[in-house]
């Protein structure tokens, strides 16, 4: 600030009494300004043209570094020794019990020790369901949260408990070779497994509409019903059952619903 003159400019008359000094720009201020401009240009040139950095490049580099540091372990087979199951139990208590209940009997999420599995009851299917979650119904994708190790433990625990409850596929310390319990194929059984939670024990309607009154929102012919079940009404919460149940089971359950409705409406 060597160049301070403290000379008044004589603007006070026009500035409502405010005077101004004719001082030069402080050297260090000017230096700072010029430095930031040069740095800014330098940074931009370096980033884009010299080292060709980019956001995508950083992401890829980080992924490569992570893969090196934490190599993808081959999915180990599920182990069912006491220590593993006990560790799994602890994880279950922390993360899962709030929805599936401390006794695994269900709550917000479904019962894990009854006879039915929505996404498959084989140990590997259970592990996959935990890893990938069912986000559309509120089950979190636990893979990135817990990691494969903890998931293997908690899956072992769930399978063990389910077996006690008689619902899991047979386990011989390893993945069962063939499908689990015989899948129910009557319309009533399919309905009980998949539909009662929303449409009620007696189809009287709960979260979803009644299926035994004379009113159909999306059409009441067998064809309409099959169509509605297959595609669902996602915007209202009705699941698209097509990919879950498959054509054959949908045919059976649609016929069942249609018949029950006919019977109920005929009575009135």
């Amino acid at each position, binding site marked *: 600030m060597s160049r301070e003159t403290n000379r008044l400019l004589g603007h006070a008359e026009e*500035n409502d*009494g*405010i*005077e101004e000094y004719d001082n030069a720009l402080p050297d260090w201020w000017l230096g700072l300004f010029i430095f930031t401009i040069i*740095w800014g240009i330098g940074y931009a040139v370096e980033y*884009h043209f010299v080292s060709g950095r980019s956001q995508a490049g950083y992401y890829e580099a980080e992924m490569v570094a992570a893969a090196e540091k934490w190599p993808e372990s081959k999915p180990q087979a599920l182990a069912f020794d006491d220590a593993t199951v006990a560790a799994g139990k602890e994880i279950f208590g922390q993360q899962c019990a709030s929805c599936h209940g401390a006794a695994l009997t269900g709550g917000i999420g479904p019962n894990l020790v009854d006879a039915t599995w929505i996404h498959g009851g084989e140990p590997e299917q259970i592990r996959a369901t935990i890893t990938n979650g069912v986000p559309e119904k509120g089950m979190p994708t636990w893979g990135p*949260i*817990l990691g494969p190790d903890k998931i293997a433990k908690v899956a072992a625990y769930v399978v063990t408990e389910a077996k006690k409850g008689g619902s899991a596929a047979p386990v011989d310390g390893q993945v069962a070779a063939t499908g689990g319990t015989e899948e129910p194929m009557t319309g009533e059984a399919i309905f009980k497994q998949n539909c009662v939670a929303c449409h009620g024990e007696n189809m009287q309607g709960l979260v979803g509409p009644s299926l035994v009154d004379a009113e159909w929102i999306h059409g009441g012919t067998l064809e309409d019903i099959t169509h509605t079940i297959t595609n669902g009404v996602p915007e209202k919460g009705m699941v698209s059952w097509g990919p879950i149940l498959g054509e054959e089971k949908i045919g059976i359950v649609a016929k069942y619903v249609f018949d029950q409705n006919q019977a109920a409406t005929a009575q009135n």
Partner: protein
Amino acid sequence: MSSAVATAPGGTSDRPYDDAIVKKFILATMLWAVVGMTVGVWIALELAWWPANMGIPYFTFGRLRPLHTNAVIFAFGGNIVFTSMYYSMQRLLKVRMWSDFLSSFHFWGWQGIIVAAAVTLPLGLTQSKEYAELIWPIDLAIAVVFLAGALNFAMTIANRKVKHLYVAIWFYMSFLITIPVLHVFNSLAIPATLTRSYPVYSGMTDALVQWWYGHNAVGFFLTTPFLGMMYYYLPRASGRPVFSYRLSIVHFWALVFLYIWAGPHHLLYSALPDWAQTLGMVFSIMLIAPSWGGMLNGLLTLRGAWDRVRTDPILKFMVVAVSFYGMSTFEGPMMSIRAVSALSHYTNWVIGHVHSGALGWVGMISFAILYWLTPRVWNRKLYSESLATTHFWLATIGIVIYTVTMWGAGLTEGLMWRAVDDGGQLAYPVFMDIVNRLSPFYWLRFLGGLMYLTGALMMAFNLIRTITGTEPHAQPEAVPAK
């Protein structure tokens, strides 16, 4: 010469300065300061203790938060800016406002818009663009009322009785010109019903326009008019000449040119192209010196008046305001650096930064001006100087608590989000665990905010007693040093 201006209305005998409009804006400023900060303290409590929303949808955090931001920025901030402009422009241009009708229309229109905002936001009517939430009919009203006010100011400048335009007016003009441009382009939307509309932009374009607007709302609503206010009221209150005329001109042009480009620093590590992110970052770094030019000119103007800073609460408020301006305009550019943003973005650090600018700079300079102006326009002695000093200390300690706790909270969550364990898994996979850790910080922030609000209530009391008092304002005007 200048002492006559301060106590008796100046101007010509047939067209004296219009101080009635200044009085109206002062009263509105005090009202909205108290409302806006009360809502701020309320939502601060909701973050610490959610039952404070009383289970009533209108009072939930998501609806009160935009009410807070709109009330403090556009109601409190807007009214103090207009207060300061109506008083200082007439005196700097030596002429009464061009149109009394437009002054009055501007005042009532602006208050009407604020009331409309205070009704619609709790009802959940919003366009969900930050700081531009208001629905399209209100947006239209803002454009009309703001432009009416701007026209009045422009015509007053055109009819001025002086040749030289003081630097404060340059800053005011940048506000009058830029804000309507930002507001109109960011709010472009196609109305569907009276309360609903569809923005004309989508995706990344929408985000870019939004933050071009958002950052320049900071730049041209919370910065340039307030710098203009500093350039008028700080020399007036201290009686000192402005340190450097040249610095004021150079930092003005540098500031307005650079600010406009810096918006993308809100979109680092997003889908915005890399080059645009770089642009936002480097223009932010280049903003340090132009911003500090304002701080320097303020602090160096006070040379020779430091003994008075020790006793005069108005100068105390100004020194802290200018210092926080310097602090937040250094912190902001640091947060614009990619690597820093990676940590600070989405955390409470941003909230701390916002409030060191908002409470420290905007709030404190506004309080100083209110304490300086109210006794002058009403010609009444300030009711209690010691109460004003108490306000100063409460506010200063409140800001420090607010910003320090938000840095703590921001660093805590930022570091916990990114932490990984030995196996490469997230160390804190459950988000709620991190949120729960923030609780003590939230409580302390509530305390800091409460102190700041208490100070503002003291000021409202003090100024109302001043207005209703009987003793005339008799402080001799400080004569500028020769």
